[in-house]
């Protein structure tokens, strides 16, 4: 029988996946004002690519995962350079449609290559189960949550202590001001997409491990929820993005367990709408200046 702490744990694990995905979205939106629906597609490609590298090419897990992350980072950079950069400054509708085009292209290419059905993901981590009272904890859950927290801490460090990181924070606060200070937006954009997409790829791999299967449609909804996390947590705040991601993860776990599994999706998007109506800057967001 499932207990509250069990649900919370599951919520944290899924929340971690949302967080990894949401970071890219948060930075992209914060600095470049791009609502990157295609991001979910990169996440999906990460999962599918890792599947091939592990199951078909039988590469050692560490190499497969590294290659996946790098490939996804590269994909993000390509998208930025060829799809988004030319549209910089264009209105939100145009970038949205372009973004959707990318997502459609990725999803359907994936369907061609891997087929439309979910495929079992190689569970290259031997499963260990621990018990903490009535709660069942798997090493996988621990891995996902811990890895995310470590990465996020690392990201915060990079943002606060490196030049590029500070430039990013500055640009999130005030993009025009950042430009005036001589910050090279092109380099920044590339870096943001590389890091965000790399993390998305990693999230895809973790999803495969945690939820045991991957399929070409897994990106769309997940990407949208990650975006909801960004908005709820507060645009322009990396810490807010985490908060939003874990909040959604937990909320969904609770709603699925105690109310109805189906309303799980509705609750997230309803919360998104509510946030924008009541407190557009989100939980931790500050007023972000328009570029």
């Amino acid at each position, binding site marked *: 029988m499932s207990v509250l702490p069990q649900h919370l744990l599951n919520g944290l694990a899924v929340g971690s996946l949302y967080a990894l995905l949401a970071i890219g979205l948060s930075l992209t939106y914060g600095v470049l004002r791009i609502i990157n629906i295609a991001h979910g597609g990169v996440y999906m490609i990460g999962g599918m690519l890792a599947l091939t590298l592990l199951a078909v090419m039988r590469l050692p897990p560490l190499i497969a995962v590294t290659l996946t992350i790098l490939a996804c980072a590269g994909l993000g950079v390509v998208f930025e350079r060829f799809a988004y950069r030319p549209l910089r400054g264009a209105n939100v509708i145009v970038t949205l449609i372009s973004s959707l085009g990318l997502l459609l292209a990725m999803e359907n290419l994936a369907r061609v290559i891997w087929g439309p059905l979910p495929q079992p993901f190689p569970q290259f981590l031997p499963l260990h189960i621990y018990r903490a009272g009535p709660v069942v904890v798997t090493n996988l859950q621990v891995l996902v949550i811990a890895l995310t927290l470590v990465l996020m801490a690392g990201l915060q460090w990079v943002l606060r202590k490196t030049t590029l990181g500070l430039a990013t924070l500055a640009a999130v606060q005030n993009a025009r001001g950042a430009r005036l200070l001589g910050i090279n937006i092109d380099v920044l954009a590339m870096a943001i997409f590389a890091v965000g997409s790399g993390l998305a790829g990693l999230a895809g791999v973790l999803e495969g491990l945690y939820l045991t299967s991957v399929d070409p449609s897994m990106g*769309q909804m997940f990407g949208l929820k990650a975006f909801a996390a960004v908005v709820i947590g507060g645009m322009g705040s990396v810490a807010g993005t985490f908060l939003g991601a874990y909040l959604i993860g937990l909320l969904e776990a609770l709603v699925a367990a105690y109310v109805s599994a189906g309303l799980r999706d509705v609750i997230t*998007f309803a919360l998104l709408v509510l946030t924008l*109506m009541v407190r557009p800057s989100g939980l931790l967001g500050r007023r972000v200046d328009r570029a």
Partner: protein
Amino acid sequence: MTALLDLMFGPYALTLLILVSVNTTLAASLNLITGYAGQVSIGHAAFYAIGAYAAGLLFKTFGWGFWLTLPSAALMSFAAGLVIGAPSLRVEHDFLAIVTLGLGLVVQGLALNLEFTGGPYGIAGVPRISAFGREFGLWGYAATGVALAAVTLLVVYRITRARPGTALMAVREDPLAAEVIGINTSRYKILAFATGALFAGAAGSLYAHYATFVGHDSFGLGTSIAIMSMVVVGGLGRLWGPVVGAVLLTLIPELIRFTAAYRMFLYGLLLVVTMRYMPQGLLGALAQRKPR
């Protein structure tokens, strides 16, 4: 005579025509909201859904046919537009895009999960349109679709060349200035949403009686963005834009059927390329060519 026409306009062509006219109606209705009134709305499928589900549910509950569900669905969507348009009074642009995106997903989620909408199974057995005791065939549907699209375009035309249209465009161009010259921007934003919703709802009821089935699948974010794409590709804020966009984006996937599995992949790329080189839409690009 009909035989000859059937040769030229066989079932396949008629089916496409039905699709194009439904899409034109959807795109034209969205054009009023986003193109003329400047309110970004990427949840337009919600109105389409509400219209379709209204038709399905009215049939299930009262046994109504198309001629009764059409005006009812339109009115219900109109009411929905009043509600869903409300956020536009508080947020603009990016934020409005996200809110409407969220609302669209909420509506779809509700359709999927509520019992009375049939849940994941939707509503089946919606009757075909019939008049004078005879069920419509493809010709009937095509005629109805074209009529609906024509009415929608006519209404948009009449609105936009007159005082209300001027008010909408003023709201689009500069809401503050519009307000200062006496235009109640709140009223016009809501009116734009509600009127656009009305026609999308009408399209929804037509769809319900055509497909004879209403399922949550057809009303997701992809649909909303597809509709928006048609408006943009044709040219935002241009009267014939929705027609051009609907024709192009409905026919092109059909024309490239020969590419089989890669069809939607290419379609996706097409969207990216079009936004890159022609963000003002086809009619917008053509207008720019004309010497001033």
